[in-house]
C-alpha cells in the first residue's frame, strides 16, 4: 500500500482556487521533490497535507496509510506521523524549545498509547539530535525560535523532525535563505533521517538543495497542477531551461 495517495486534489484559500487537481503517490522510503515557481501552489499543498484549517479542500481525496487524511486535525495528522518543516518557522516567546519539544513528543507518544518520556530519558536522546544538527544546547533553553537567525530556525525545524521521527516529512522550502554551510548541515540532518520506512516530500524553488538531498522523483508544479514528473535529472533541466520551458514541454506532450 502506498503511504500517501493524492487524487485530483483541489483547494482554495479565501475563494481563490490554488490547487487545481493534484495527483501524486508516495511510497515508504521515497523522496519526492516538488518544484515550481512562486505562486504555483507548492506551499498550499504542503499546508493542506499538514491540515492547516484555512485551506479549504473543494474536491479530491488524500489517503494516508489508507486513511482519509483530510478528516484529521493538525494534531491528529502529526500523531499519525506527518511532519511539516515550516517555510517560516514561528517564534513563540515564553515557551522554551526543550519544553516545547518534549511536550510535542509526549503528545505523540500519548496518542500512540506509549508512556510519556521524562526529562531523564529525553535529554540524552535530545543531545544526540542536537549534535547531528550542530546546534548549541544553550539555544534550547531559549524561547521557541525567538531571536534565532534564519539558518538556526531551519535547523531547528529539522531538529524537531529528528526528535519526532515522522513517517512522512514535508519540507516546505527548507533551503530558502540558507547559506551554503547551513544548507549542508540541514541536508546532512535530512539525509540521516532517510530510511526505508520514511518518505519525504521536499518542496523547493531552487534546484540547489537537490544537489545535497537527492530525490527519487521530481515533480513540476505549475498553476495548481503537476505538469511534469521525472527523475533527479528533471531538476537539472529546470535549472538550465527554467519553468517556462518545462511548461511548454508539458503542453507539447
Amino acid at each position, binding site marked *: 500500500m502506498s503511504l500517501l495517495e493524492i487524487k485530483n486534489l483541489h483547494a482554495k484559500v479565501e475563494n481563490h482556487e490554488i490547487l487545481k487537481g493534484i495527483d501524486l503517490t508516495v511510497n515508504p522510503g521515497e523522496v519526492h521533490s516538488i518544484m515550481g515557481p512562486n505562486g504555483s501552489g507548492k506551499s498550499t499543498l504542503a499546508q493542506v497535507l*499538514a*491540515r*492547516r*484549517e*484555512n485551506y479549504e479542500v473543494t474536491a479530491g481525496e488524500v489517503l494516508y496509510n489508507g486513511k482519509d487524511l483530510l478528516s484529521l*486535525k*493538525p*494534531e491528529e*495528522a*502529526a*500523531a499519525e506521523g506527518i*511532519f*511539516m518543516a*515550516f517555510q517560516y*518557522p*514561528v517564534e*513563540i*516567546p*515564553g*515557551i522554551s524549545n526543550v519544553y*516545547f519539544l518534549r*511536550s*510535542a*513528543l509526549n*503528545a*505523540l507518544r500519548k*496518542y500512540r498509547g506509549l508512556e510519556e518520556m521524562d526529562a531523564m530519558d529525553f535529554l540524552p536522546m535530545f543531545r544526540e539530535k542536537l549534535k547531528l544538527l550542530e546546534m548549541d544546547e544553550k539555544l534550547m533553553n531559549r*524561547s521557541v525560535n525567538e531571536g534565532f537567525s534564519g539558518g538556526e530556525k531551519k535547523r531547528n525545524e529539522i531538529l*524537531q523532525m529528528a526528535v*519526532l521521527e515522522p513517517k512522512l516529512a514535508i519540507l516546505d522550502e527548507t533551503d530558502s535563505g540558507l547559506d551554503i554551510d547551513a544548507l549542508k548541515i540541514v541536508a546532512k540532518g535530512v539525509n540521516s533521517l532517510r530510511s526505508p520506512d520514511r518518505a519525504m516530500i521536499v518542496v523547493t524553488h531552487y534546484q540547489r538543495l537537490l544537489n545535497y538531498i537527492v530525490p527519487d522523483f521530481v515533480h513540476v508544479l505549475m498553476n495548481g497542477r503537476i505538469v511534469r514528473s521525472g527523475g533527479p535529472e528533471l531538476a537539472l533541466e529546470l535549472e538550465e531551461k527554467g519553468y517556462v520551458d518545462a511548461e511548454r514541454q508539458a503542453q507539447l506532450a
Partner: protein
Amino acid sequence: MNTATQQLESYLEAFSELEKLAAWRDLPWWRKLREDAFARFAEVGFPTTHDEDWRFTNVSAIAQTPFQLATKESSSVSPEELEPWRVPDIRCQLVFVNGRFAPELSQIGKLPAGVTAGSLADEFSNHAQAIEAHLGRYLDIRRDAFSALNTAFAEDGAYVHIRKGVVAEDPIYLLFVSTGNKEPLMSHPRNLIVAEAESQASIIEDYVSLNSGTAFCNTATELVAGDSAVVSHYMVEREHPQAFNVSTLRIQQGRSANVASHSVLLGGGLVRNNVHPVLAGEGAECLINGLFIGSGRQHLDNYMLVEHASPHCDSRQFYNGILDGHAHGVFHGRIVVHKDAQKTDAKQTNRNLLLSDDAQIDTKPQLEIYADDVKCTHGATIGQIEENALFYLRSRGIDEVSARKLLLLAFANECLDRMKQDSVRTHLETLINRHLFQVANSVPAARVDRGEEQARKWEELG
C-alpha cells in the same frame, strides 16, 4: 440625590458606631486624620464615570449596596476552611478575616531580629512613634474617595517593619479573607510596611473570599522604602465573582530605593487595583509588573500613577491582560514627571489578549512631563491568540486546548519571569496554570478559524 443622602447616612451611622469602639484610634492625631478622611468622603462621595480617573469603571454597584461593617461575630473562620487557600512553604503567615487580625489562624514563627510583622491595631501601642511617622502620611485622601473611606474606617491590618540593614530572607505572607453573610459586608484593611534604609523584604498580600455572600474589600497599603532598601510587593486577587475589591498600594521610595510591585488579578467581580509609587529620592527604581486574567463578567481595572519627583529615577511598567467571555479590563497608566526630575527614564507597556468577541479592554496612557531632560515611552497592544503559533504547536501534535493553554501561559510567563522570589513565583505559576486551564477549556474551537490578528498598536516616544 435622595439615594446619595441615604448612602451617606448609612456610612455616617457606621462611622459613629465605630467611634465608640476601638481604643487605639483615640490617639488624637489619628482621630483627626480619620475625621478629616470621613469629612472628605462625605463631601465627594463615590466617584462616577465623569471623573477622568474612573472613566472606564462604574462603581455604582458599590455605592448602591448597603454594606455593613463586618463584626467579629460575622467573621468566624475555621482553620480547615482556610487550608486550601494558604500558600505552602511560607513560614510567616498572617491571616486577617474581614480586615481584622486572626491570631488563631496565623503563624508568625520566629522572625529574624529587626523584623516585626503583626496586627496594626496591636502594634499601635508598641511602635507608636514609628507608626505615627508614616501612617496616613502618603495615601492621598483628597484625591481618592476610596482612600478616604479606608482611612475613616480602618480598624486593623498588617504592620510590617524591617530595621535598617536587615535582610528578611523569607517572604511575609498576608492573607485577607472576606466572609460573606446574608447582609453585604464591607471591610477596610489598612496596612503599613516600613522597610528602613538598606533593608530587604518581600511581602505578599493575598485576597480570597470564603463563601458566596456579597463582600466589599477596600484595602490600602502604605509601603515606605528607605534609602537603598529593596522591597518586593505582591498583590494577589482571587476572590469570588460577587466580590468587590478596591486596593490601593501607595509606595514612597527614598534615595536609590528599589521597589517591585507585582499584581496578579484572577478573581473578584469588580476589581480596582491602584498602584501609586512616588520616586521621592534620587536614583530610585521601580518595577510595576502585573497580570490580569478575566472571564465571565469580571471587571478588572488597573490604575497606575507613577510619580517621578527626583532626578535619575527609573520606572518600568509591564501589564499583561487576558480577557475572555464578557470580561472588561482597564489599564490606565499615568506617569507624572515633576519639574526637578531630570534624567527620568520611564517606560510603560500594556499587552492584551482578547479571547472572545465580547471581551473588552480600555488602555490609556497619560503622560504629564514638567522636566525637559527625560525619556518616557509607552506602548500597548491588543490582539488575539496568534493563529500561526497555534497551528505551529498543533502541527507538532499538541492538541488545540493544550496549545491554547500553552500560548496563554507563555503570555503570562512574561510577568512571572519578572518575579524574583522563587517560592512566590512558583506558587503563583501553579495558581495561574490552574486558572488558565479553565479559560483555555472554555473557548469554543470555532473561534480559532477566525484567528486573524486584528492588532491595534501604538507606540510613542515623548
